[in-house]
């Protein structure tokens, strides 16, 4: 295992590599078996710059997520996109790093309101497949200078370069959060209620449905008086959906932590899929998986988590529904195959960024 302790050493390690490299942060988000010598970014750790008044944080790629969240919390700020911790779902151990968050574009329930990791990411430094150090973006939140390789690096799973440093736009934290729970809705009823809430002016920052338990959850965040006003408005809006219940403070926060990290799937057997569609297609997708043993909807129904018996094909039954399914745990191909013209572009990008094809070979096709 290589653990370079500086960006320069990282560049050297890649440049001098003669065989495939498996890029790794904390190793908690492994979704694909990759051959090669492990190149760990954990030696590159620490917050390089944090300016609360500018809403900006810059950190080395191997910095533990927990360290960043603690630094932000001390100033009552946070990462807007609520990065998911994959350890429960993937049965991994280790310490999640911020580089891993970026490489997988890991985003939580607040994605519907505040965007994904890629939306908060404003700068990257990375080492390409030939060992060249590249920077793109920077530390300011409005920047259209040159092509946006920042977004390209987010969610590229280490196949285009090894990140050494990442910059974020952060947001103020909130005074309080509250959750409105609806009961006994089926998938259509739940998506209907979630859409109604998300189409309201009440700034819903979480919209999820646990199908097994039949619980629909809507989160509101902000200043105390604002949250209680919006909670009352939301109750009026959703009165037709039956009995409601409220969670406040810690109870509300605990629920969304569980939703963020998919703790509902803790200990389940079978394959785990993550499906992205438009919310109104969620009922059809759920219907296409009759053998699913557990299904959880987030993002108002636009993100479907499903547990299915080992080896179940989830993609084919989706048919012509627009969207895509990722197999996070199981034997199916992780990412859906790309249409030929897109596959050619992806191949082209990899050939430019990593001409020797040594970085996380095969992960993205």
């Amino acid at each position: 295992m290589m653990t370079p302790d500086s960006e320069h050493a990282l560049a050297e390690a890649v440049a001098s590599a003669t065989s495939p490299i498996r890029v790794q942060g904390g190793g908690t988000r492994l979704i694909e078996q990759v051959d090669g010598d492990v190149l760990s970014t954990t030696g590159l750790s620490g917050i390089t710059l944090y300016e609360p008044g500018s809403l900006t944080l810059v950190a080395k790629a191997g910095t533990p997520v927990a360290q960043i969240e603690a630094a932000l919390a001390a100033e009552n700020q946070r990462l807007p996109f609520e990065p998911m911790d994959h350890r429960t779902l993937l049965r991994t151990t280790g310490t999640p790093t911020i580089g891993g968050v970026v490489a997988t574009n890991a985003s939580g329930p607040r994605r519907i309101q505040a965007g994904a990791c890629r939306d908060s990411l404003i700068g990257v430094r990375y080492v390409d497949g030939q060992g060249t150090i590249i920077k793109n973006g920077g530390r300011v939140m409005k920047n259209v200078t040159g092509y946006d390789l920042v977004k390209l690096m987010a969610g590229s799973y280490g196949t285009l370069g090894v990140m050494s440093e990442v910059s974020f736009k952060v947001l103020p934290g909130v005074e309080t959060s509250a959750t409105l729970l609806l009961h006994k809705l089926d998938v259509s009823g739940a998506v209907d209620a979630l859409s109604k809430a998300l189409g309201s002016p009440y700034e819903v920052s979480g919209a999820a449905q646990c199908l097994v338990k039949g619980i629909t959850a809507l989160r509101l965040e902000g200043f105390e008086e604002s949250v209680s006003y919006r909670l009352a408005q939301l109750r009026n809006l959703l009165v037709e959906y039956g009995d409601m219940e409220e969670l406040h403070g810690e109870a509300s926060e605990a629920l969304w932590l569980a939703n963020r990290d998919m703790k509902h799937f803790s200990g389940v057997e079978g394959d785990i899929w993550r499906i992205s569609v438009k919310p109104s297609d969620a009922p059809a997708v759920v219907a296409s998986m009759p053998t699913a043993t557990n299904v959880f909807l987030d993002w108002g129904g636009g993100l479907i988590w499903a547990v299915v018996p080992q080896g179940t094909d989830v993609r084919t039954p989706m048919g012509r529904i627009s969207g895509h399914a990722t197999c996070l745990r199981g034997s199916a191909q992780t990412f859906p195959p790309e249409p030929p013209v897109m596959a050619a572009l992806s191949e082209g990008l990899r050939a430019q960024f990593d001409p020797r094809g040594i970085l996380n070979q095969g992960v993205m096709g």
Partner: protein
Amino acid sequence: MEMPAPDAKIMAKKAMLVNRLMQVLPKDAVIHDEFETRAYECDALTAYKCPPLCAVLPATTQEVADVLKICHEEEVPVVPRGSGTSLAGGALPTADCVILGVAKLNDVLETNYDDRYIRVQTGRTNLSVTGAVEEQGFFYAPDPSSQLACAIAGNIAMNSGGAHCLKYGVTTNNLLGVTMVQMDGTVIEIGGAHLDAAGYDYLGLICGSEGQMGVVTEATLRILRKPEGARPVLIGFDDNEVAGACVADIIKAGVLPVAIEFMDRPVIRATEAFAQAGYPDCEALLIVEVEGAPQEIDSQLAKITAIARKHKPVELRESTSAEESAKIWLGRKSAFGAMGQINDYMCLDGTIPVSELPYVLKRIGELSKQYGLDVGNVFHAGDGNMHPLILFNANKEGDLELCEALGADILRLCVEVGGCLTGEHGVGIEKRDLMYDQFTPEDLEAQMKVKDVFDPKWLLNPAKVFPLTATQTRRARLSN
């Protein structure tokens, strides 16, 4: 600003090219008359003009594909054009290019309020996207100042922002899917109505690529429900530095206003003379706007004014009605027009870390004196996106060059303090030759390699974004 010499081989085959284009487009969609092509000789950066070889106005994605296929075969450069409102020369033609205007592609294809998106053809103007959904209480968030005229195609090309992006983000944060035609005529679909597109983030890559990777003909955009209301507060200070500190304190307090606008004395005076908005005569003015239900607005404004009072403002005017709100915004919205009344001006667009605001304003003042040209500042303070307006006289020999030199120094200053050359206008030709001030040759090479993948012949929107010296080898390879 230097542009590459037109290719004589291409100039010589104009008649043949026009003939081929007329075979795939209606006759009136091919503009080749030397007088009529002048309509396309420049965009909103009017200091630079060059009539194209011809201009085409396709009305469907298929027609766009047909045009690009022909130009690809003939190896003719293509400059895509939205509404031509670029301040950076993003749609400036070369004499040997075909201008591909998307103005005829302006339909709404689908609106879906349950899933909160709209699909439009990209020639549609920014404001008319909101226009299509506002009856249902929705809006499209990015709001560049040119929103009445600018096209979604150009918004995507430049990743346009606006006054409200502190809360809602810029174009790239609101774009869900595109139909794009590649230079060889291949039509590709990326993303859709779902929130995260599969594979690499091609949407993120295309957004802000200044029309150099393909021609986007359709876009799926996220729409949002309008807030119940919005109200601004006007805060005047005797000192730029104090105004800057007030901005930082508001942000640190956990209030997230939807907009924080900043104007300095030269701009305040000019707009007051022009629009009589009733602004106080002071060193710096902030307009801070918050959104929500009436009582939410009240409580947020109370927090903001409490913070502002600690900084001893010379004026603090909280809007209590729609009329007062309109009056507070009146001056800000007419600022550019007001400056244009007193002089020609060049509008810069650098972004800086918000913490550097006082220092940068002080340095701009010094540079202004050094060059002998006045500079007014009006900008989005919450996100650090500056818009220094350099006043000059276009009819005075050498003044434009002097203005450009001052502009370059101000942009270098933005980079020096940790910012960038452009926050929302794009590089175009305007900032092209300053790119080495922000990027290393390796950084630029990495970007150009992406262009190699999407447009191997480098035909799309030539001579923009990258310094000509950086693209020299690639251009030489192609002209042989």
